[in-house]
């Protein structure tokens, strides 16, 4: 059996969950097996993850510098531009695994719009657009600003809910988790409707309320459209009532219990067939990336999987903080 990430317990079942693992679990138990237990890559283009990750990190750092360190807008902007330029440059490393100045090359994104130049442009344009935003960062009861925080919230049955937030803000008299998204498509008001049932947004709101004991109303989502010649931003909100969050919690705990049951059986038998398939999910989002695997006769499936699908370069582990 594979070496499982440390988010799994001695029984071989996941105890630390994030929105990514929850989404796969809800989509299809067999998909969950492939991605979280098997740690097979779903083949999604890494450019979106890398671009989005660098972008989100830059904005989080900016808020940390201005809110916690007292940096001016210009100081913080220069700092995050510098850091992002460095993070998107592939240096040769010395014996101490430190970057060697004067070596290496720019990271290749292999995308028409999500390029290194457009990443820097988007960061600068966004921070210029919203630098005078009229809202404050929440200060927690212990005096620490709610900025750039990773959460691990222990709930019932020794389950830990994990995630990472940019910050919690007060806007128009209400508290919101703030989150950043990037897209190559056009953004409109309709773009935000999809978030009303989104697991990640529900998890952020649920965890934010629990950790900060604050009446967080939902998530403020800033979507950046990345085009070849420009970046455009749109801000929207998704709300969660107390009742919706209770319902969300009941549903995810039921799903976690179900998946843990399959996982323990798999640990005992080594047979992936204990994870049932959800046949209605095979066509989602342009087609499940593992449809080609599930389509194979059962007796050849494992061999096909190992021969045709690569493993993740870095195992997915909700416990690892960004």
């Amino acid at each position, binding site marked *: 059996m594979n070496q499982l990430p440390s988010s799994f317990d001695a029984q071989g079942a996941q105890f630390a969950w994030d929105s990514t693992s929850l989404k796969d679990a809800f989509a299809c138990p067999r998909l969950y097996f492939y991605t979280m237990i098997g740690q097979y890559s779903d083949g999604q283009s890494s450019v979106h993850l890398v671009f989005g990750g660098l972008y989100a990190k830059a904005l989080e750092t900016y808020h940390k510098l201005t809110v916690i360190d007292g940096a001016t807008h210009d100081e913080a*902007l*220069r700092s995050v*531009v510098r850091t992002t*330029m460095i993070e998107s*440059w592939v240096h040769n490393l010395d014996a101490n695994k430190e970057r060697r*100045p004067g070596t290496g090359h*720019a990271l290749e994104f292999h995308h028409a719009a999500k390029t290194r130049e457009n990443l820097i*442009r988007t960061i*600068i344009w966004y921070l210029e657009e919203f630098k005078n935003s009229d809202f404050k960062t929440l200060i927690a009861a212990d005096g620490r600003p709610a900025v750039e925080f990773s959460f691990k919230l222990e709930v019932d049955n020794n389950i830990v809910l994990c995630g990472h937030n940019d910050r919690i803000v007060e806007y128009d008299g209400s508290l919101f988790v703030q989150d950043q998204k990037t897209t190559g498509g056009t953004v409109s008001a309709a773009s935000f409707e999809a978030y009303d049932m989104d697991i990640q947004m529900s998890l952020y709101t649920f965890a934010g309320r629990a950790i900060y004991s604050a009446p967080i109303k939902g998530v403020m989502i800033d979507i950046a459209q990345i085009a070849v*010649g420009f970046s455009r931003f749109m801000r929207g909100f998704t709300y969660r009532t107390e009742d919706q969050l209770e319902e969300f919690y009941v549903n995810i705990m039921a799903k976690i219990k179900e998946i843990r049951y399959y996982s323990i059986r798999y640990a005992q038998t080594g047979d992936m067939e204990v994870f049932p398939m959800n046949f209605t999910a095979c066509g989602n989002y342009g087609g499940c990336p593992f449809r080609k695997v599930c389509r194979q006769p059962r007796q050849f499936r494992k061999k096909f999987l190992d021969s045709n699908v690569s493993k993740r370069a870095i195992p997915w582990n909700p416990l690892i903080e960004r």
Partner: protein
Amino acid sequence: MSENSITDLFQTDPLLLTDRDFDALIEHYRKNRLNFNIATKQTTSTAAAKKVEKGNALAERLNISLDDFEV
């Protein structure tokens, strides 16, 4: 700053760039953004002006006065 200079900055190891280089990069994109916003407003104004023109032409053909309509 010229486009060539911006290209040079992106092709240079950022560990070797100075604060001045980063400020120049930021200023370049600030101006870039202003120019884009101006161009977008002009496009929107031109489109709006065309709609008003069409509305007036239609009103004339129908022999009605737009003043008779409350908006």
